[in-house]
């Protein structure tokens, strides 16, 4: 009859353990960081938990950005939302419009009497997530920007100077011709086509993506991505696709594998891809600013961010919000941010973290890791390059990418495709506006 005694002991120990843990307030953090990034997220949470005894942050991987956002919406409807949710940049408008579901970060910080100054954060990053009065609604966490990666060995083979990556699209054409002539099967590919070639293209050339400061000033915004400059750029890519100078790889980061495998000589994709490329590429490569059209006045301006921020959900107890506030303050500390930035390829969110990394000599030892922040800070942001805020932009981006795909497949010319994209995109914006009056 030893079994019941064992069970009783186990139960007692379990209950004791449970009651001890109850003294700590648990804070649920839903995120979408995988692999090495997920490990870093756990490091941050463990660091915070070890630094104090009152709160315990529990990071939970809930799937990709759309999956975790959907899960959070469903959980909110069931009254079970997490405390902190990592939402990607295209979900910003949806989160901002959900006034009853979120607790704006600046409100929470004020109520908890925590010092919080939006000016400590990078202008290009903070601008994306502040309202028209300059109040920050969510905490920037992992922001990236697209960069231009060049395979130096492929350049050498084609007779080009490997240290001189193309700065303009005109120089790109020269390089592409030589690369193709030297037998390079795939000359150039891209990840995240809409993010790179429509959204960042607009910001980099100081062109508007939509009216009302790219949607920041009102829900009645309309897309402006069918301007003559946009049409010319996408038509250029369509022509390059026909010539074999541009190979389309898909809507996410599928192009990155083609670059680090050596298949494609040039790549535009997220700055966060650097880690992966460094790990897998068996050749020397350089990290550069995006190419620009020297014929467009104002270029190059500055690029805009991708990535995600941390939103705080509403309906929690004041004690829990105190814990969330402490955690967000911890995450913004220069050392924590610097560590996160150096280990991932995301940009440092605060100026303090950037200075800390610079003074530690990190950028000298790791060339190319500061390109992202330099491109974001290239010039002070204008209304065209502060960021964007379009409702239901998950759908909107897909519409844009569908139309772009038809140009790359040679089915439509760029003018028809972009006009269609604007028409369909505006319908989606109007639906969002109607549902969020």
């Amino acid at each position, binding site marked *: 009859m030893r079994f019941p005694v064992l069970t009783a002991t186990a139960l007692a120990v379990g209950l004791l353990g449970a009651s001890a843990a109850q003294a700590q307030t648990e804070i649920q953090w839903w995120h979408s960081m995988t692999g090495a990034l997920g490990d870093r997220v756990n490091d941050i949470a463990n660091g915070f938990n070890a630094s104090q005894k009152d709160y315990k942050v529990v990071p939970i991987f809930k799937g990709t950005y759309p999956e975790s956002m*959907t899960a959070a919406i469903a959980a909110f409807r069931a009254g079970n939302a997490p405390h902190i949710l990592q939402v990607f940049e295209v979900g910003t408008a949806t989160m901002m419009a959900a006034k009853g579901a979120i607790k704006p970060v600046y409100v929470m910080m004020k109520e908890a009497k925590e010092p919080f100054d939006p000016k400590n954060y990078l202008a290009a990053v903070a601008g994306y997530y502040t309202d028209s009065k300059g109040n920050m609604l969510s905490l920037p966490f992992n922001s990236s920007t697209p960069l231009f990666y060049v395979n130096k060995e492929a350049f050498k083979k084609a007779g080009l100077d490997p240290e001189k990556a193309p700065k303009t699209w005109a120089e790109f054409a020269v390089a592409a011709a030589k690369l193709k002539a030297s037998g390079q099967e795939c000359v150039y590919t891209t990840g995240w086509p809409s993010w790179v070639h429509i959204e960042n293209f607009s910001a980099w050339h100081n062109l508007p993506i939509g009216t009302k400061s790219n949607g920041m000033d009102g829900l009645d915004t309309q897309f402006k991505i069918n301007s003559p400059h946009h049409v010319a750029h996408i038509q250029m890519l369509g022509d390059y696709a026909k010539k074999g100078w541009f190979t*389309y*790889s*898909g*809507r996410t980061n599928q192009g990155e594998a083609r670059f680090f495998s050596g298949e494609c000589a040039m790549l535009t994709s997220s700055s966060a891809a650097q880690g992966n490329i460094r790990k897998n590429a068996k050749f020397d490569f350089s990290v550069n600013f995006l190419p620009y059209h020297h014929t467009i006045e104002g270029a190059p301006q500055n690029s805009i961010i991708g990535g995600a921020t941390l939103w705080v959900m509403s309906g929690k107890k004041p004690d829990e919000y105190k814990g969330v506030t402490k955690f967000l303050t911890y995450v913004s500390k220069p050392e924590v941010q610097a560590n996160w930035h150096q280990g991932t390829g995301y940009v440092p969110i605060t100026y303090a973290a950037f200075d800390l990394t610079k003074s530690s000599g990190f950028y000298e030892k790791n060339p190319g890791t500061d390109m992202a922040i330099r491109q974001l800070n290239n010039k002070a942001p204008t209304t065209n390059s502060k960021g964007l805020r379009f409702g239901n932009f998950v*759908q909107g981006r897909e519409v844009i990418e569908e139309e772009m795909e038809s140009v790359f497949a040679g089915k439509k010319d760029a003018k028809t495709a972009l006009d269609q994209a604007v028409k369909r995109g505006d319908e989606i914006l109007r639906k969002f506006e109607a549902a969020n009056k």
Partner: protein
Amino acid sequence: MAMEKRVVFRSAWLPYLLLAPQIAITVIFFFWPAFQAGWFSFQLQDAFGLQTEFVGLRNFEELFNDPRYLESFRITAVFSILVSTIGISISLLLATMANRVIHGALGYKTFLIWPYAVASAVAGVIFAFLFAPSVGIITFALKQIGIHWNWVLRGDQAMILVVVASIWKQISYNFLFFLAGLQSVPKSMIEAAAIDGAGPIRRFWTVVFPLLTPTTFFLLVINIVYAFFDTFGVIDATTQGGPAGATNILVYKVYHDGVKSADLGGSSAQSVILMIIVIALTVAQFRFIERKVHY
């Protein structure tokens, strides 16, 4: 005349108690979501459900004015016709051949039935790898014979990919039923036809196939419902409705608009329409096609 054995429940409440679990499941997982979808289809709401507005038939109107939705109808029709006709034809061929083999028959039958155990999402992933534009083995083979395979850009190729993956899974199911059907054909009829001088092909089409019509009809219904719904896993794991909506079948569009785009009103309206279509299809099939079936 066989004697019908009837089971009589003497108790008044026992039958209901025994049925209760199944009814509870049906109500919770089928009727409740269906009613909620019907209710949502008349509303316009934001993603979090904080503001809902009754808008009557507006969601339905918007759907029918949307060329993408009408295109989805066409794509679903093409997809389900391809999957069911090609799937049934191939399985019938395989079943006829497997019926004649004596040596190793068990081996052939096992391998032909095996794919049914594979989940659709897994089948989708397998074919996604085989046909991957850069690294797929079949892509490589196609390149050798001069075919440029890139389903990420070409909609017709994406359709071929999902049709092949869906058929591969369903062949086992069809094969099983056809095999059983073939084995129930009386040998005496076939021998009689052979004695009368009919060749094997003539024998098949005039004797065996008419006797298989109940099985074929049943499989046609099952395959169309399969193509409408169970192929979701294949599409989600491979093309996600792309490129440019070329594989955006109705059931996938419901998921995409509801979950990824958080458009609950539109998505619910689509699922209501889908339910009406399938009910109508099934009724039509049982009414009209059943007449041609020889029992």
